[in-house]
């Protein structure tokens, strides 16, 4: 009982404690602490995995933690599993943490992260050359505001998310000014506002996310990404600058504290086996964020519909 007391609600409203006496024999009854972040897709992924582990008899705690700050906890074993580390934004932090072996990569979630410049479909009228990036300079006026004129205005991600947009604008000679939004919420608030008025906007959008599902639009097609283009100035269109290409696309990884495999080998194997694809995830995100359905219901529906899939992960 006292144990339950401690475990209950460790992570606030969303930290549904699933701890209890386990029906099946598992290696350890200590709760596996999985982290929750602030975007819906990650909440779905983590809750799905938690439900599956729970079916296998493990105890799970869901804990609210910051995306990058969580690595401190994963290294010491305060936190155990993080279900979504994006190649595009979390690579450096992940490499740093896995370098000394205290954190291990448990493979891809099967989802592909896309991050790129994006515009709503109605902007094609004002700028018929899109989505080719070379058309951007012709339409700089169309995307301009009083502050940035005559340059176009591009609304970039929060500074901390990286992405090299300032470097990209420089390297490709784009007539645009990069304005950094402070958060995801501010970014999409501007998109919503512009979309309501069918007004010009050019901004950073990522997937899997509800925005590309709700709003009709396209990603700009930059010269394709390559590692050389980012690291070697001489590669790519501009011989004197790096980052003269689009952004990388890449897997979303699962990572865990290295002790997970020793303490809960079955759980580690199940987490490693977990995969899901972009479309399935997009559909679930849309039901939650656009239709307002409770996350628990959406997760439960998936569990019912895909019993064979998740039973295979836990070897049943």
């Amino acid at each position: 009982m006292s144990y339950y007391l401690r475990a209950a609600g460790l992570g606030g409203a969303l930290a549904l404690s699933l701890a209890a006496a386990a029906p099946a024999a598992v290696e350890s009854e200590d709760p596996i602490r999985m982290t929750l972040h602030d975007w819906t897709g990650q909440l779905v992924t983590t809750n799905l995995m938690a439900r599956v582990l729970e079916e296998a008899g493990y105890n799970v705690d869901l804990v609210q933690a910051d995306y990058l700050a969580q690595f401190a906890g994963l290294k010491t074993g305060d936190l155990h599993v993080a279900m979504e580390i994006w190649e595009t934004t979390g690579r450096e932090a992940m490499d740093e943490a896995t370098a000394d072996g205290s954190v291990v990569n448990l493979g891809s979630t099967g989802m592909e992260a896309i991050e790129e410049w994006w515009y709503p479909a109605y902007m094609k009228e004002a700028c018929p050359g899109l989505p080719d990036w070379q058309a951007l300079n012709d339409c700089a006026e169309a995307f301009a505001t009083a502050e940035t004129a005559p340059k176009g205005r591009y609304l970039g991600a929060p500074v901390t998310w990286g992405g090299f947009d300032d470097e990209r604008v420089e390297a490709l000679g784009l007539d645009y000014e990069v304005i950094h939004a402070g958060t995801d919420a501010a970014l999409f608030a501007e998109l919503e506002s512009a979309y309501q008025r069918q007004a010009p906007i050019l901004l950073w959008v990522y997937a899997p996310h509800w925005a590309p599902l709700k709003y009709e639009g396209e990603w700009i097609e930059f010269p394709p990404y390559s590692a050389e283009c980012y690291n070697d100035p001489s590669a790519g269109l501009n011989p004197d600058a790096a980052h003269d290409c689009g952004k990388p696309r890449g897997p979303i990884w699962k990572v865990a504290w290295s002790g997970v495999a020793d303490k809960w080998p079955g759980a580690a194997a199940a987490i490693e086996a977990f995969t899901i694809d972009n479309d399935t995830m997009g559909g679930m995100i849309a039901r939650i964020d656009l239709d307002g359905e409770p996350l628990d219901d959406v997760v439960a529906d998936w569990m019912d519909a895909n019993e064979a899939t998740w039973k295979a992960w836990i070897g049943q």
Partner: protein
Amino acid sequence: MTWQPSRAVWMWLVLLAVTLALARWAGPMAVPGWMQIDMAGAVSRFMDWLVNTASFGLFTFKDLTRAIAQAIEWPYQAVRMALVEGWVEGRRSEARTILPPISWIGIIAIVTAMGVYARNWRLGLFVGACFLYLAVFGQWESAMVTLASILIAVPIGIAGGLVLGIAGAVWPAFDRVQTPFLDLMQTVPTFAYLVPILFLFGFGPVSALIATVVYAMPPMVRITTMALKSVPSEIRDFGVMAGCTPRQRLTRVLLPTALPDLMVGVNQVIMLSLNMVIIASMIGAGGLGFDVLNSLRRLDIGRGIEAGLAIVALAIALDRLSQAFATRRPGAAGDGARHMRWWVVLAAFVAATTLLGYVVPALQSYPEAWTVTTRSLWSDLVKWININYYDQLEAVKNVLLLNLLLPFKRFLLALPWPWVLALITLAGWQLGRGRLAALCLALGLFIVVNGLWEPAMTTLYLCGISVMIAALIGLPLGVLAASSERAGRIIGTGIDLLQTLPSFVYLIPVVMLFRVGDFSAMIAIVLYALAPAIRYAAHGLRSVPEEIVEAGAVCGCTRWQILTRIRLPMALPEIMLGLNQTIMLALSMLVITALVGTRDLGQEVYIALTRADTGQGIVAGVSIAAIAIIADRLIAAGARRTRRKLGLEPAHP
């Protein structure tokens, strides 16, 4: 009355001219390499040592902090069980409720009874209505999660504040040591120390509780020290003559005498804890704060506003309740044996509704079918403004941005830093001689050697403009509020709403209407910082001695002359203190406005938070505190001087 510019005024006019010339022709100056110190790195290394190595022999420092976390976790879980989850055994699918949480009807009955006990039926019904609002608008469960953390954070804050405050009153040396720390606790933004707290106390609601306590405790410490010191010496002497031991003197004489003042501190702790709800939810506190963040993240403006208003309802209920307790006289309703049975009835009612919850679910939790929502109304309203008035708003924004904000920003960024340092030091010298000058110089240098000059100037620009606009709006509103009781009440309600509504709620609609950037940040800062400008102005105007006003009337002054020649000059010190508070609030908003993409010290703190960089966060946070302290000391010295000139305070060296 002709105004003779003094020598000091002439000097400042000349200095202003030089400043303008420097900004025009000299331009910014780089800080030489030898002056830059890696203080951030040192702080980070110290933190590493504290978390990983520091030890007391038998146990490490981290063991100690984790034990503290456990000690807080336990009562927190107990309160949560009582209010939210109940005593549940088993997993989701086969969960068995052994004891349900206290029913919503029961909690409303309890708070109503507290209102009646503290004052009268009117207050009881008001507090009950606030809580009923939470149920009707479907915010009950989140509100109870928030209430649970308040119920834990507030007693810790009060107890800690009392202990430190008493220590400060007993040992003046201790007071002198702790005062600068209290200054820092109140001015360093919370984001700056979230990372070290997370490292030491672990991830979860306990860390959020500790951050809340750090933020909410300082006023309690200050008020305790002040209240104990200001107990009249006759009462002190009486305690000595009655033969009290020092401990008896404290607990039987001093603390009871100071009780009304102490209750003001309790009220402050409650309100500041509620201010922290949003930030605490970022690191796992859950509750209403999480609802606000989560809805705005998916641009569900209506839901965000509803959850925000629920925080306001909770805040107002707790505020009125604690104020009523502060002024409660013994012998009011609820005292004495004959009221005993009322308490028995209440307890029986709460127990009955809670237990009946087994049979009738509607008693247990407010039925979803009865909830009301205004969600679509709010988002439709923002959409309607957006579609119909965006162009007009944009035009106003562009005029202000291009003619006021951007030129001012360029001007400040163009100033060479040694000149600015010299100016603030000189201002310190003029207003407070050597000590103040040294303080200003030292704090300014702190920013310089840490390489934060540019973000600091951006901070100055954003806050400066916002404070100016807040003062321009606040002063006339303050005059209006002071002119009649009715206007005062209406404006007062508006101020309360603005101060308790989490700023994040209106930040997102503001971004929708004014885009990401400094202008949106400025609007959010002005809205948040407006309250003290109005409140102090109104208070200052009201407390001008009536004799002086009447003397003016006898001399044949018109109403306008009475206002501009008598009331406003006499209220100047109060207005300056209000300005001071406005600056403090504006600075504390910076970290929130970093979320809409400003590039100032607030952004530095925010970046440090997301990168879990303790050193950078603390250094940038202390830089904000440095600006706040410089402004506070200079204005306080200026206000003292004016008061002396007006004869409101005896002149002494």
